């Protein structure tokens, strides 16, 4: 029996598979090769793709049933969390990467696990459409590399709260030192991965400057078990740092939330800065120690010192890990890239996101350093796997070569019964890392997993109820309406 989806369903799925392939190729070939003498980075990336392939269909269906992906995207636009441009854009890539390897090894055909692929892509498509609703794009590359997540009311909120700085003053000095410390801390806590940071914007400000909104995420005791203890002194799990710069054009904010500026980003051009926290339990952004410049500067200094201590502490612990523990930690950072959707939906379970599936474990014997480096290079850079070749007439978008990164679903599944539905339920999971024991740091305090889920399910917001009015096109013609006033209320 053919698959029970319409031709249009499959056209849309394949369209998004190709869209993600093009985005990932551009990013992987214009950014940087990831490497580390500390972590076996590419072996863990490779393993993470298998874990995504084995587990995303079930965990995302569970999330979608509790809270539809498009609602999560709407919620996420109000706060700074892991449900952001890089994570929601890259998550489906990891899943498709696992599929591509399975095809390349002859373990699947492109007609296999079709229901799974359609569901995962559909989840990601709805999530990204609603998250990027303010400019009606799905990815920053759709908008010539800009990423305006916020509506005008949110931009005005940040602009009005921002505290002015002058190069060399106390706040400027503290901010600059803090950004260096939080960057090093984020790379380490994320095992060399950039997921601790995401930027969106730029937004024009009333005085003719540009604002970039910089999110630093999962800073305190959170989902990552290895941050228990080391990160206990970090007060907030997520920090959103709007920066207003003069004489700076943020000419690119890309699909990974990275930016390029012209002239180059230079802290001497910083005009004003803010600091906020938020998460999947907060009703928008909460100002952090923004009473005045001195208070904010002292807080930056305090948190910088604590992050430097946490960096040293965590580094000593990680330096004593076995290779298997390093691979597990890194693969779980990558695989768990979509984890915050489960937090929003109130169905987060640590074992869903921080266990290595038994089907992933199967491939561990292949994961020496050289194989990991070569496999990643071929899959996302060279596009040179046998399964990626589409024949001599094909011409890919950027490379103009015959290979395409991700394989689409053959339309034959609409006409015959030669297809399979999915990978089945999640297999047993395990990890070589110590289990998580600390509570989660949230805007509602330190909570257990059950308390986190209960609070997420109980979340209610009068502003969120007005989300269909949270639209600059509507607000433009209804500036004095009750809905506009309620949404703009501080």
């Amino acid at each position, binding site marked *: 029996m053919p698959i029970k989806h319409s031709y249009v369903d499959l056209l849309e799925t394949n369209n998004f598979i190709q869209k993600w392939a093009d985005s990932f190729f551009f990013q992987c070939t214009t950014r940087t090769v990831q490497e*580390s*003498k*500390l972590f076996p980075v590419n072996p863990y990336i490779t393993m993470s793709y298998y874990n995504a392939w084995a587990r995303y269909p079930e965990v995302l269906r569970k999330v979608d049933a509790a809270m539809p992906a498009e609602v999560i995207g709407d919620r996420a636009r109000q706060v700074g969390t892991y449900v952001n441009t890089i994570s929601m854009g890259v998550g489906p890539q990891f899943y498709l990467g696992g599929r591509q390897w399975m095809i*390349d090894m002859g*373990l699947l055909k492109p007609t*296999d696990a079709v229901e799974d692929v359609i569901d995962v892509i559909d989840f990601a498509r709805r999530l990204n459409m609603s998250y990027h609703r303010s400019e009606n794009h799905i990815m920053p590359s759709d908008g010539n590399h800009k990423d305006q997540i916020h509506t005008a009311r949110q931009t005005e909120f940040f602009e009005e709260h921002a505290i002015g700085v002058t190069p060399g003053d106390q706040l400027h000095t503290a901010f600059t030192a803090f950004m260096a410390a939080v960057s090093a801390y984020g790379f380490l806590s994320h095992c060399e991965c950039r997921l601790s940071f995401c930027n969106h914007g730029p937004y024009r400000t009333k005085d003719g400057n540009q604002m970039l909104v910089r999110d630093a995420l999962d800073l305190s005791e959170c989902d990552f078990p290895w941050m228990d203890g080391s990160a206990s002194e970090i007060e907030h799990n997520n920090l959103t740092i709007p920066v207003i710069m003069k004489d700076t054009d943020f000419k690119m904010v890309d699909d990974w939330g990275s930016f390029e500026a012209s002239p180059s980003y230079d802290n001497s051009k910083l005009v004003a800065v803010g600091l906020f926290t938020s998460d999947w339990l907060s009703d928008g952004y909460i100002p952090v120690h923004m009473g005045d410049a001195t208070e904010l500067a002292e807080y930056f200094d305090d948190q910088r010192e604590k992050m430097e201590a946490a960096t*040293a502490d965590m580094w000593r612990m990680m330096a004593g890990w076995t290779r298997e523990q390093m691979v597990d930690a890194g693969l779980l950072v990558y695989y768990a890239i979509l984890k915050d959707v489960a937090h929003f939906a109130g169905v987060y379970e640590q074992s869903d996101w921080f266990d290595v599936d038994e089907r992933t474990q199967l491939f561990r014997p292949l994961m020496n350093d050289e194989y990991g480096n070569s496999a990643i290079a071929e899959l996302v850079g060279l596009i040179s796997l046998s399964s990626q070749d589409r024949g*001599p007439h094909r011409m890919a978008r950027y490379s103009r070569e015959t290979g395409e990164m991700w394989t689409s679903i053959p339309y034959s599944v609409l006409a015959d019964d030669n297809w399979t539905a999915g990978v089945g339920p999640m297999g047993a999971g395990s990890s070589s890392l110590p289990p998580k024991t600390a509570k989660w740091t949230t805007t509602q305090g330190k909570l257990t997993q059950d308390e986190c889920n209960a609070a997420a399910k109980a979340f209610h917001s009068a502003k969120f109820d007005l989300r269909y009015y949270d639209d600059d096109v509507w607000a433009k013609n209804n500036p004095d309406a009750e809905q506009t006033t309620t949404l703009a209320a501080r």
Partner: protein
Amino acid sequence: MTVKTQGVGPYPDKWARESATPLVERYHSAVRALAAEKFERSGMSWEEAVEAGVLLPTREELEQIEADVLAEGYRFDVSATISLKEEPDKYKPLAGITDSGEHETDEEGRPIVGTGDNVFKAPADITGTARYISDVDRVMEMLTEGVPDNTVAIIDDSGGTLTAPILGDFTAVVCMGGTVRSHLGILTREYNVPCLMNAELDGLADGDEVLVEYSKPAADAYADADAAAHHRVRIVKVS
């Protein structure tokens, strides 16, 4: 290693080709061959075989694929030092800094021992002591005892984690890999620690006094190879 494609896959591929790297070709073709054998033996339709999971390799079969490669005398390139530490017999030893014995000289006749791409333009060139940092033990030593004054860290890792707890204490950095966009490049910019990425070194020894031209313009990440080569920053051995 000689590429030895292992048998044929379990289903036709009109546009099959060899993978670009020998290890991927060797491993993937071997798994394909195993899948083909298992499919043949199963007597099932393809869809039945996939759903029953009979095509998946066992852990032992995958271990054998690696063992066969090692038995041919092949040793893997290493990235993370933990890999070499735990399984030294599987990996090639880490390469140090080469010394060809032939160096160009600067305007004052001093040997140029390397060049690299400048992450940002510093106010002035820097003279310091080159200290090679390539493993956890060296970082731990500096974390415990402090980074010596005037250290120009010579790092063969473009990541941001190996030196994360001591990065801000370096006077400057020279990285033998990556690009100006690598994590180490990003972090050194944030710390305002002058840094060269993608450095090519020849004849530099641990403890040498070096002058690095960090006051030169930053490298253009989009420059073509010729333009990039023209803007390389020099590392000069001064004693």
